[in-house]
């Protein structure tokens, strides 16, 4: 406030003013502009890297083919789309798991570790209890991965709730502890072999739609829908929203803030754990060394999902779109790399980075606008009226 007055006399060329609530039209416009900027930057990048030998049309059609299959080729489309679907569903699932924590303004960047713990717990069942009756074993697999993920999420939550321990740093560290524990089991099981063989087929999750990971897609999508309703329609979801807005209001409303923090992180961790468990049981059928780039339990989605959840503003529908966009970039650039060696390594992440930066930076224009000198600002007045009761 003091600022706007100060600048009234000596106004700089451009200054930043807070917008009211962005209208739906503005929100769509800003997002579209961000994506357009990303498209232009990526095109420039492709042209430079391709040294003129790769045309844009060719490059983008390769990316399309790598994600959704060659148009008209049913077999290729089927393979590609299923593969895209399972990864997109997994990314969606992790983003969905993070949504309640973020909505509560609890920075859970420990999804990676929670996924790993869930996956490891399931792997232990598959490795050591394969002889149990299958239904019992399947139930056990699911139960332990949920519990382990939840525990991994609750530990930092307890310290946050009681002592205010910085949860961002805590959950971040928990990731690596989890990975090292998994490495321990991996090395132990692998023994002198060059790689860990997949677990026996009897321990796998049953196939669905002719894909061993069929159930994963179904469960992840169902979880996303459930979470949507949990946050929107349940009392617990409501409590999360209140705590996230203001702990003081929550206390006023008689909400036990500590309990909500711990409970919410248990849920967040549990879903991450389930995601890890299902990935091991139905998709990877194995675990991998944490430093390996391929076939890891998490695929690095514990981190990527943070960006997905944040950009979608906890909106499940938005998460689906952003998950698909990231899959398009990941798989598309993979295909691009197969076709053109110049794009073989790293190009995918560069393009994902460009797109993310554009969307992240663009979000600024949702909440703020630039005011150029010598323009009248009639809106300013409304703001002061509301704000200045303390003057």
């Amino acid at each position, binding site marked *: 406030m003091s*600022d706007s007055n100060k600048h009234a006399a000596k106004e700089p060329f451009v200054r930043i003013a807070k917008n009211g609530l962005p209208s739906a039209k503005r929100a769509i416009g800003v997002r579209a502009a961000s994506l357009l900027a990303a498209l232009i930057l990526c095109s420039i990048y492709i042209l430079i890297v391709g040294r003129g030998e790769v045309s844009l049309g060719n490059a983008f059609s390769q990316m399309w083919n790598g994600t959704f299959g060659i148009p008209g080729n049913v077999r290729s489309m089927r393979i590609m789309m299923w593969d895209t679907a399972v990864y997109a569903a997994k990314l969606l699932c992790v983003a969905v798991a993070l949504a309640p924590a973020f909505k509560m303004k609890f920075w859970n*960047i420990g999804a990676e570790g929670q996924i790993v713990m869930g996956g490891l717990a399931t792997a232990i069942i598959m490795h050591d209890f394969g002889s149990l009756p299958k239904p019992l074993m399947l139930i056990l697999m699911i139960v332990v991965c949920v519990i382990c993920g939840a525990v991994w999420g609750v530990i930092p939550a307890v310290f946050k709730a009681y002592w205010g321990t910085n949860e961002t*740093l805590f959950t971040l*560290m928990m990731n690596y502890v989890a990975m090292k524990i998994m490495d321990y089991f991996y090395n*132990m099981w692998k023994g002198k072999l060059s790689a860990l063989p997949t677990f026996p087929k009897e321990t796998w999750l049953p196939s669905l739609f002719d894909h061993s990971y069929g159930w994963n897609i179904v469960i992840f999508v169902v979880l996303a829908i459930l979470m949507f309703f949990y946050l929107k329609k349940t009392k617990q979801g409501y409590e999360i929203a209140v705590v996230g807005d203001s702990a003081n209001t929550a206390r006023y409303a008689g909400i036990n803030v500590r309990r909500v923090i711990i409970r919410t992180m248990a849920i967040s961790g549990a879903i991450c754990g389930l995601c890890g468990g299902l990935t091991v049981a139905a998709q990877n059928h194995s675990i991998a060394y944490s430093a390996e780039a391929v076939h890891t339990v998490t695929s690095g989605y514990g981190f990527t999902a943070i960006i997905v959840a944040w950009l979608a503003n906890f909106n499940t529908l938005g998460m689906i779109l952003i998950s698909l966009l990231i899959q398009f970039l990941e798989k598309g650039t993979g295909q691009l790399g197969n076709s053109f060696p110049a794009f073989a*390594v*790293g190009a995918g992440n560069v393009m*994902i980075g460009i797109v993310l*930066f554009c969307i992240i930076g663009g979000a600024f224009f949702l909440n703020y606008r630039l005011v150029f000198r010598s323009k009248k600002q009639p809106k300013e007045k409304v703001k002061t009226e509301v704000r200045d009761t303390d003057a």
Partner: protein
Amino acid sequence: MLSTILSWITRAILFGVVIMFGAMGETLTEKSGNMNLGTPGIMCIGGAFGFGCTYLYEMNTDNPNAFLSIAIALVCSFVVSALAGVLFCLLTTTLRANQNVTGLAMTIFGSGLAKFFGMFIIPSGVVTVKAVFANKLFTKRIPVELGSGKVATVIEEVFFGHGFMLYVAIVIAVAMSVFLKRTRAGLNLRAVGENPATADAAGINVNKYKYLATSVGAGIAGLGGAYYILDYNYGGWSTGAAGGIQALGWLAVALVIFAIWRPLNLIWGSFLFGLCYWLYNYIGVFGVRMTSAQSALLEAIPYLVTILVLIISSIHKKRENQPPAALGLAYFREER
């Protein structure tokens, strides 16, 4: 026995220098209130460009000049990393984006850019290339001869058996400590990270400090990447090396917490982390036998210790040991 311990210490120091650079950069950044989780990615960028430029130089020159080779590596690494820091600051400070989200995106982007750039400059079909000349320069020991006694050997190995970057790192750490404690700019920077509103009221340009600290911090972290390739990794670049840098980058972020945001603690802290990291290889020194599987658990020690430090300092609530009070929060004057 002695030689085993010496080799352990040497490796720990070598390892420690990588994360010391990363942690010094992150410390400087966090002192301004910016938490840059893009540090692992930025270290990758520093590694790729530091290696890449000096590699191109020595490949395209008949008689490469030692000074130029080092200068090219360090300057390129620093500048490109600093630019990544500027990008981070542009998004978080000027465009007020969330720091965690921006940082993680930066790590994705940085590791991608590093891998891509590394592959872009090396001949196609080759997996690993070496910057042989630069590697020789970076690993060159300080020529100190203290005789042949046991004590002399120990001193020689522990204090002088390393490339020059170790000493650069220590000098930077000491300088940073002096800067933060004893200079006006350091005082102002700490005020920005603790209470930007007060700093602003005192006439300090908050954004200027955030930009400078974040970009210089990113540059210093980037040097860690260059050191990783040109010394620690014997001058060899591969796509896997970028992954290695990234893993160490997260350890650098942990080290900042372990050192409770004090540059001098980073020196011994980084070596301690190095000892922990290599413990599995040398655990026999203590008469303990360990399978290779169990060694993975030893690697978790630095992270566990860091968590412990975090917990203890939050329960103790000693003010000096807390993260900068405004860490992770964007500052806008309007909301005063």
